[in-house]
């Protein structure tokens, strides 16, 4: 962890960076509840390919989403070295299966570059920008966009 936590000034934000394959992504730290190791999940019938199943999180049922598959990449083959990021998206809590958590970043809005125009619709949907830090390229993921709101339509 190269960046220590310090008092955040206006416009600063903290992000959690993680790795899927050879790519790096990050999400806003405020939506992350906890990070835990992979445990076998109970499979769900007729579920989409990125749905790895559900696990018990201290009495609550937590769905595990394979973020790699969700982002349109190769589905993960979970092992004990995989990590689950427990994140709150709106009112739901989901577990995101990733390869590893790498960093906590403190950045200002200036550090975030707009997403390049070569992206296809899939990437444009979730990518909120790109960070260049120490020659690494980290994609900022917007979880709200990744998990569209399903509640609003229920009258």
């Amino acid at each position, binding site marked *: 962890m190269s960046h220590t936590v310090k008092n955040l000034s206006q416009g600063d934000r903290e992000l959690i960076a993680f790795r899927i394959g050879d790519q790096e992504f990050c999400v806003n730290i405020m939506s992350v509840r906890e990070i835990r190791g992979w445990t076998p999940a109970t499979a769900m*019938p007729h579920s989409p390919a990125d749905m790895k199943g559900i696990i*018990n999180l201290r009495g609550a049922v937590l769905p595990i989403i394979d973020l790699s598959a969700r982002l349109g990449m190769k589905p993960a083959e979970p092992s004990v070295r995989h990590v689950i990021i427990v994140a709150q998206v709106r009112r739901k809590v989901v577990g995101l299966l990733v390869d590893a958590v790498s960093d906590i970043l403190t950045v200002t809005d200036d550090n975030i570059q707009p997403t390049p125009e070569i992206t296809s619709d899939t990437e444009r949907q979730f990518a909120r920008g790109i960070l260049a830090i120490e020659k690494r390229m980290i994609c900022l993921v917007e979880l709200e966009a990744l998990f569209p709101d399903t509640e609003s339509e229920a009258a």
Partner: protein
Amino acid sequence: MDMNEIKEIFFQECEEQLAELEAGLMKMNDGDRDPETVNAVFRAVHSIKGGAGAFGLDDLVAFAHVFETTLDCVRSNRLEPSQDVLKVMLKSADVLADLTNAARDGGSVDEGRSRGLVKELEALANGELPSPSTAAEVPAPKPAAKVAPALAAAAPAPKATDDSGFQPIPFSFDDFGDEEEVGSGIPVYEIAFKPRSDLYSKGNDATLLLRDLSRLGEMSSYCNMDDLPGLDDLDAEAAYFSWNITLKTDKGEDAIHAVFEFAEWDCDLSVKEVGAEPSVSPNDELPMIPVPFDLSILDEGAAEAPTEPNSDAAAAVAAAETVSNVTQMAAAAARVEKKEAAATAAASAAAAAQNNAAAGQTIRVDLDRVDRLINLVGELVINQAMLSQSVIENDTTGTSSINMGLEELQQLTREIQDSVMAIRAQPVKPVFQRMSRIVREIADMTGKTIRLITEGENTEVDKTVIDKLAEPLTHMIRNAVDHGIETPEKRAAAGKNTEGTVRLTAKHRSGRILIELADDGAGINREKVRQKAIDNDLIPADANLSDEEIDNLIFLPGFSTADKISDISGRGVGMDVVKRSIQALGGRINITSRPGHGSVFTMSLPLTLAVLDGMVVTVAGQTLVVPLTAIVETLQPEAAAIHSFGANHRLISIRNSFCPLVDVGRILNFRATQANPVEGVALLVESEGGGQRALMVDAIQGQRQVVIKSLEANYTHVPGIAAATILGDGRVALILDVDAVVGASRGQALKPEMSLAAAG
């Protein structure tokens, strides 16, 4: 506690008062003229006014004040609570509720409506009748029903303190709230009442009968003890006393007989009208004992009861001393004492009944706290199950003390769980009550006359179920009144009663609650529904559908989004939403309709969303829980009993009948091909729509109580799966939705698209 919290409490109380108000008005609407009901209604409005005044909610105070004034007229019998008057009052109760909500949540109330009602209320208070139909009735002060508003507050009857003679003590029931002296126009009855022993042995009590009688009007009574034998001859079981009663009442002779309705066979009773002047004078020749009959002990709290009878008994003894026949009097005293013991018992019973009427002793608890407790108990249940399992696995010798302790623990957990669940269990009454308002409003808007009949409103269900029930039910009631029931003209033309009926019923059935909404309207117009579905591309034009299938089309999403809903004489406003919210509750909804006779919607819901008795089974390496209530029996299929049927179906013969086999693992897509039934176990299940299916699973692990965990909270509804639970080893297991699986086996598969559709 800051002001906001106090205010919040006030609004919570308002909710209760409003419910009481409406319940009272509905009772009066059904002909209940009990002053206590009127008082309860009055009190409700009065307390809302008082509280609102404290918080400076002027609109609310102003309206409540006018309402209260009119109610006071009813209370003091200056206004006859006719149907028309009650109609205004029910509407006023609605507006009062709206004003309360507006005061809490902001927002405004339709001023025209409240102003109109204020005028109507004022007119009523001024003695103007709401509609010409009742013009015959004069709103002049009516001879009052001579009943004290609250008997508990009545002054105790005079005591027999005069020991100089046998001055009979008149039975006096002080009546306040009645300024008017009783006119000579009120008939006076002389009643001779002599109970036979049977009366007491059948559980009747002369005391209670006399009390009921006293409620009819002004009463005085004399107890005749002529027949009382000496102590030696006294049969404690026999009846010796008789009463001569003078009763001034305008209720008529029938009312008097009604009091003795259940006792008339067991007593000698004569009722005779003696004109308007009381003619009974104490007969000094008779050795009459003044038997103090203190009504207050019947209605006051039980705590006070013991002291009163003592003094009364003492008085009786004091009176007895002056009489030469001491033996006889001692017996009388004994009799009095016995009677009072009964009265004391009656007093506590009455007190209990009163408490009951006042909804018992309650505390208000934050729902979150109860939820936390329930969750903890759930964990306790899981833990206990884990413990049992590991003891069974490790302790093959079976140490008796451990096993006994474990058994006790199991029983305790079960009991704790039941009690905790009971905290959340509530009657469906409040929701049903809310529906009567919806019916009133829609009926008003559409110009129909509708009667809402509710049954089984004391059926108890978990609070979360009740809360989530209100919305779909409102929707359905609206539909029933708006689309289901025809206009009075149409009804008349069809030879039906112009008043439409909507019946709302709740009952328990095999561990679930069944809520039925029936109307006697036109039923579903299947031709139009079918056409609409074809127009909206919901079904192909050449689809061959059964009546039942057509009826169920109205639940399809898309059916309701049609622009001109009123074009369909059937239903369809958001029924897909209704179905979805019922499903979200783990429930199902069914419709049956008879053209010309109406429709019945049947909802089957779980009693609680927290716990369920389940059979833990293994399917394709997965652990599943099947709700025990669905399982009729389990059996080990034999090869000879399995028959192939067509290309893909297999039937199992059970006692000479054939039942379709459903491979759970296949239908849930846990395996690609059907398993060999002989290697598994069949669970014979009965589905909601009737009909049996044999669900094939690989093995049964055991029977267990499981805590239901919502899948929807963090994920989404999954077809075929009702919910999830956490097993003893901490892993999650899925709870099978038996009816969905059975439904899937009938035709449509549980498709992944469905789950995506559910996810949005």
